């Protein structure tokens, strides 16, 4: 145990650096994922037939193993952070997209009818009624994505993006147990912490009226 602590102290700089890169990768990937998924999910909620198709296709992409995707990215974009971010963002899209789409389409139709009946434009209905009511679902999607991407980002080290994956893969190739444990533990810990943080934000932005249940 003391050996492990000495190891941590000796390598703290490298560990923190990997951690920072890892978090950075995740944040950028999820952010891009949101930028793509939320508007598309919103638009898809207007075109339900197209939506089924698009969601199907995105679902298929999701089933392609991450390693394969990274391979492709390596071929097209070379080594480094860029291909890693592209692949991770691609994976971040699906949960956010489905949750945005479902969140909006499942807003009770009475609210939409009332909104239309009192003279809101469709843009107003979207921003004042549908999106606020779907917000909780959308944030759930972001949370799922983030937790996924934190673990998937460990693979990104394989194409030279760095991050906690670096520690794990180096540990594996040099049979250094300490490195593997540190990398894996940190990935798990930040997944739990960030997941909890997003849950907290979700609770914070949900209006009181949506929380009270009689």
């Amino acid at each position, binding site marked *: 145990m003391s050996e492990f602590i000495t190891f941590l102290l000796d390598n703290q700089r490298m560990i923190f650096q990997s951690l920072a890169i890892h978090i950075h990768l995740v944040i950028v990937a999820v952010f891009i994922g949101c930028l793509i998924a939320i508007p598309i999910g919103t638009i898809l909620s207007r075109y339900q037939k197209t939506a089924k198709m698009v969601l199907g296709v995105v679902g298929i992409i999701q089933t392609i193993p991450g390693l394969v995707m990274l391979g492709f990215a390596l071929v097209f974009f070379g080594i480094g952070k860029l291909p890693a971010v592209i692949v991770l963002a691609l994976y971040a899209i699906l949960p956010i997209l489905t949750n945005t789409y479902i969140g909006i389409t499942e807003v009770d139709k009475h609210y939409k009818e009332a909104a239309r009946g009192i003279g809101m434009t469709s843009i107003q209905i979207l921003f004042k009624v549908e999106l606020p009511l779907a917000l909780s679902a959308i944030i759930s999607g972001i949370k799922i994505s983030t937790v996924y991407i934190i673990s998937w980002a460990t693979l990104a080290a394989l194409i030279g993006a760095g991050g906690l994956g670096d520690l794990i893969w180096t540990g594996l190739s040099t049979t250094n147990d300490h490195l593997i444990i540190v990398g894996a533990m940190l990935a798990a810990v930040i997944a739990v912490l960030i997941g909890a943080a997003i849950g907290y934000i979700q609770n914070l932005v949900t209006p009181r009226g949506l929380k009270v*249940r009689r």
Partner: protein
Amino acid sequence: MIKFSGISKSFGKSKIIDNLSFEVKEGEFIVLIGPSGCGKTTTLKMINRLIEPDNGSINIEGVDISSVDTVTLRRKIGYVIQQIGLFPNMTVEENICIVPKLLKWEKEKCIERTKELLELVSMPYDQYGKKYPTELSGGQQQRVGVLRALAAQPPIVLMDEPFGALDPLTRDALQDEVKALQQKLNKTIIFVTHDMDEALKMADTIIFMDKGKILQMASPEEMLRKPASDIIREFMGKRIAYGNSQDLSAEAFMNTNVVKTTENKQTFECLELMKRKKVNSIIVTNNNNEFRGIITIEDLKKRGKIEGPIGNIVNEDAELIHKDIAAKEAFERLIETKRDYLIVVDDEKQIIGIINKTSMVKALADALWGDLA
């Protein structure tokens, strides 16, 4: 105010609205009623263009609404739905203020209007303004729903079975409140329901629809008296069970609780009896329970002697009717003669009851709402 001219609408192959024409006057409370699928809700939703007709035109204050932008149109028409549809992410105040805000009212004016409206339904702003819909009871929610529709002072309010989901007591209270609000604010209200009691209670004019056509457009009274078809009669149910009230006799409505006394009683005893029964006149009979006359408190005061039976001073001037005469005739005679009551006697001239204005009210109530007893 609102004029439908030759409106038709089909969904797929089925014709929902069939060449509908009618006119609504300003300040009128119109109730659309009929069996489900009769087209009443479709008719309502055409007024704010949630549904567009295939043929015909709808004019509001002389303007063809198909030429008006839907958003502009809807902001001038209040809309209340059965499911209430208050936005759960907004407070009571925010919900009420939606339309004024869309119309770019100043913030202070919005708040003032909210206070004023909440006051109308006895829900103080300080207590309810910042609450969320889920924190209110069903009745309170729909009150707010109605207020939201009234917020921007639209001349017309559409209500689509607004009280359908409420318990009977709450519904009753809200019906009264809405009717009172409508009269106070002089709104034109188009109200859809399938509940005939509600229609009779609220409407100035009832439009009874079936299969996309108007079967009858009439005041509640007229519809009760002369339902235009069997479907309407069926819908009215027991409320017109006394539709053939010609057949009912005076006996059916008379009050059998008659204060009477015999002719040999003393003045003082009569006074005591009047006091005890809280009446100002009593019927005097002979020993065979046959009519002798009536005596009023004035008679007693003027002509009553301390000693001697009242039989000496009875007033024989009273109206007697036979128990089998038609109730309607009895009521007519009661009104014509301007008497307080008529005395009902049977074949043996025995007094069996009286017909007074209370009996008349009871008869009317029975005819309107079925047998109350």
